[in-house]
């Protein structure tokens, strides 16, 4: 298990990164935490000719509050994001989700940007990003462009990032007042890859659902909005019975496939169960100020 031959660069500035990515185009891959890319290279499933290591570039791992928008550098480590006071305050759902993105040792190394750029269909962060209505800032030789989740996640392990570009920033709107949220997932083991999961963020006016975003993972090539469930709940008082009823609609929102770990049928049933629980768990938690 040794990678095929590659050339390694460790640029220290964004300009150098963009220059290297531009020069090598399709042959180059950014290296973030390496927790997905390095095993793939060792198995020779991935064989980039050039690795552009982002770890030396200090500009990429900042967390800031840009006037009510949480701004994350792509190199923010997953465990760092989970611990960040700013993240917890502005986007509790992100901190909640980061507890589930892998074993602690992996999260100490793996980055938020790496997980989003990797776009694994059972990865938690793309689900959270969809529920949080994140904005992806992509940068290349031609400057910056921004994408919303539905345009960013193109398919299994595929995003809209083009050769020569990289994920420069993730921007997430601050959770509105009276917002509750939860992330929950299920699998064969406590700390393994999940079979499915649901991220929920709900803004309340009293007991009434004023805004709701639900996203499921493990049910498609990327994260999927549970719009039918959302529609059933929007503008209504969230009773237990209504939530149970609404969660059933999630079956119609997803069109999973059967794979090694679960049948399509199971993934649908799981999504229903987890949607119900995520909503209830969110409602049981604290509201934002």
């Amino acid at each position, binding site marked *: *298990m*040794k*990678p*095929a*031959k590659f050339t390694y660069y460790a640029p220290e500035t964004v300009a150098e990164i963009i220059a290297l990515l531009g020069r090598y185009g399709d042959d180059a891959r950014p290296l973030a935490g390496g927790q997905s890319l390095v*095993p793939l290279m*060792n*198995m*020779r499933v991935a064989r980039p000719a050039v690795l552009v290591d982002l770890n030396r570039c200090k500009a990429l791992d900042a967390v800031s509050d840009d006037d009510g928008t949480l701004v994350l550098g792509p190199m923010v480590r997953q465990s760092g994001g989970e611990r960040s006071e700013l993240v917890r305050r502005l986007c509790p759902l992100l901190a909640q989700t980061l507890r589930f993105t892998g*074993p602690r040792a992996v999260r100490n190394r793996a980055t938020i940007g790496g997980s989003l750029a990797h776009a694994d269909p059972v990865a938690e962060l793309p689900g959270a990003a969809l529920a949080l209505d994140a904005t992806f800032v992509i940068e290349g030789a031609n400057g910056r462009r921004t994408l919303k989740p539905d345009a960013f996640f193109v398919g299994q392990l595929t995003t809209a990032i083009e050769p020569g570009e990289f994920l420069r920033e993730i921007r997430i709107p601050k959770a509105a007042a009276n917002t509750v949220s939860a992330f929950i997932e*299920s*699998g*064969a*083991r*406590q*700390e*393994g*890859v999940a*079979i499915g999961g649901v991220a929920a963020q709900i803004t309340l006016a009293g007991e009434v659902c004023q805004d709701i975003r639900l996203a499921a993972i493990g049910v498609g090539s990327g994260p999927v909005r549970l719009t039918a469930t959302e529609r059933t709940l929007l503008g209504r008082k969230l009773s237990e019975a209504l939530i149970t009823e609404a969660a059933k609609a999630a079956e119609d929102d997803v069109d999973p496939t059967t794979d*090694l*770990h*679960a*049948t399509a*049928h*199971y993934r649908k*049933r*799981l999504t*229903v*169960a*987890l949607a*119900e629980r995520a909503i209830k768990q969110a409602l049981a938690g604290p509201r934002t100020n």
Partner: protein
Amino acid sequence: MAQTYARGPIGQSTLRVEDDPLLKGLGAFVDDVAPPKNTLHLGFVRSPHAHARICSIDTSAAKRLPGVVDVLTGRDLVDLMKPIQVDPDKPGFKITHRLAVTIDKARFVGDTVAVVVAENPYIADDAVEAVAVEYEALPAVVSLDASLAPGAPKIHDYIADNVIYENEQKTEGFDAVFTAAPHKFVRTFRTSRIAVASMEARGCIAIFERGLGTLTFWTSTQVPHIVRHALSEMLGLSDSKIRVIAPDVGGGFGMKAYLYPEELVAAALAIKYRGSFKWVQDRVDDFLTSNHARDQQYKMSYAVSAEGIIKAIRADILVNIGAYASFPMGSSLEANGGPRNMPGPYDFAQFAFRTRAVATNTCPTGAFRGVSAPSTFFSVEGMMDTIAKELGLDPVELRRRNLVTKFPYTNAMGQRYDTGSNGECLDRALELSGYVAYRRSQPASRLLDGKYRGIGVATVTEQTGQGASRYKERGLYRVPGFDAALIKIEPSGKVSAFVSQAAQGQGHLTTWSQIVAQELGVVPSDVTVIQGDTATVPFGSGTFASRGAILAGGAIIRATKIIRDKVKRIAASVLEASATDIEVADGYAFVAGVPKMRVALSDIASIAYSLDARLIPEGEEHGLEAIAHYDPPTSTVSNATHVAFVAVDPATGAIEVERYVVVHDCGRVINPMIVDGQVHGAISNGLGQVLSEALIYDESGQLTTTTLLDYHLPTALDMPTIQMEHMETPSEITLGGFKGVGEGGVIGAVPALAGAVRDALSPLGIEIIRLPLDPPYVLSMIEAAKAKRTN
């Protein structure tokens, strides 16, 4: 009357001397051994086809790569080594042979078709990719059913029906008893193929010392002497010129109790090129080629009296042996493991079985902690739960009515149990777990707080410490069965113990030192244990099959007795007393009852090694060392009761183990903490087999689970808190009263956990007859059961 034993180092939870270096990263595994300069690295070209004729192999592109030294095919290697041949010419067996590098056909995905030799492992991997093999794909058989189907493709031309081993036996009078019994129950149980996935995969370094013409062979193995003997026999270099060293070994669990083709190739090339060759396996290759286990089916038929007494059992057992029989355990190991373990703790006289090892186009299978027993007891205890339910009895009551409680006892297979505590372990486990109260308050629906909750109780036995006679009986002629210890009191008075066992994490350095210390009257920290190196340790079998404590313990007790007697004689001469009056304790030999009349062991050692003014007494040989061998008369049986509590999520099918109780008896305990660790670890193996682990071949014979993302090993987070107690019923047939403990935990965990799920889901009419119980499978059973109800 059971023997009583003096208190001393044996029985103490001495801290493991292994842990300090391991925790500090100072362990030295094969890959940590510094190989000689110019060591070359091997890469193995594995077949991507489950079954294919090899039409041609083009090595030219690979050979042209800079840094590639050679590329060899099976034809290049065939003259360098004998084929791997293991099973005896005995009824039921088929003599099979395996070429380390196959020539005619590839028989599983991972079968080796060529070997590359390169300057480093990176280039070796490049070269492996560059070898162009032309295959003609043949139809493959993967499952037991497919292999046994009429007209199934043949894995080996000389085995027409793919049945590689078969054994059928029946006790006299079986049919009449079976027919006469009022109740008959039949169920078929299946367990998934699983992987050992030891933390350290396999690997070896073969170093040929040109000047001396000797071979030093570092390998990650449980059986260094068996490997040395096999290398010698198959490669034609005399065993006296081969030194096999197993350094720290990061887990073996039976999977490394074998000689593997890669080891043969590395050693053969070292001899041929008079150089050094290294190979370290990666995880994917480990999944593809290191022996798998427990791909088994049990059709169980029970004849039971009205009172629930077992009258007769018939078992039809199928074992998927994969593409080849492996050296030295052969094709009968798992197949015979089923019937051998089946009588377990229950008293019945009539037993009939047929067991078959069936070849398929999959990775060979073999020993894995408990061999077949976890699957056997999944079936046996599954039958007990089923029969109890059908007869309207509490499952514990049914077990109690059938338990063997009088010892010695001879079971239906003719095997003698010298001592045991089946009833006592059960009673204590029920007490600790609060079984009776739990049952009383348990709702019939099994629904509590929105989850199905159930309890599972398993009473099991573990066959341990088998001696030479047992291996001969079983046709495993290549397993010696005995072990040996060479003990030296060194000139300083400190002790070295060279033991033929080879640990893979069991803590031998600690436990053997405790036994030596007890027998020689010293402290364990004065004893250094040396193992795993054939140049220094005497010939013996190695470490597998829960045999270490018994075999090494016996050999140490015998060897130390010889030394102790000599110490007493020398002390007697120094103290001018009679040797029969001398006792040894706390580092001194002294006159019994007169502790002031004493001489330090270090002084006796000085005399024995002639480093003192005093001459050794006349008639004594110099030195203070002894070697002894131990071969237990048969095997001895440990027993345990496991109680598991689980919760099944009705919406997701996910299972959580909420509580776990085990009461365990492995005879005289050497180190309670290490026994705890053995049982804990083994329970985690059982939890994996029951809840999540499965190696899955698709229909074409591709292994789809080749990483730890896809193969679901449990982690510490999946483990319940385990409440454990030990009972100590010493064996009366082993020296020291020890019984084995390595495998019992998994043997009990599999049926207890499966039984708890069975109990939780019993209101739905669900039977647990297949493993693993992963969430999608569990949910599908729940949904099917509910659909049936509403129809």
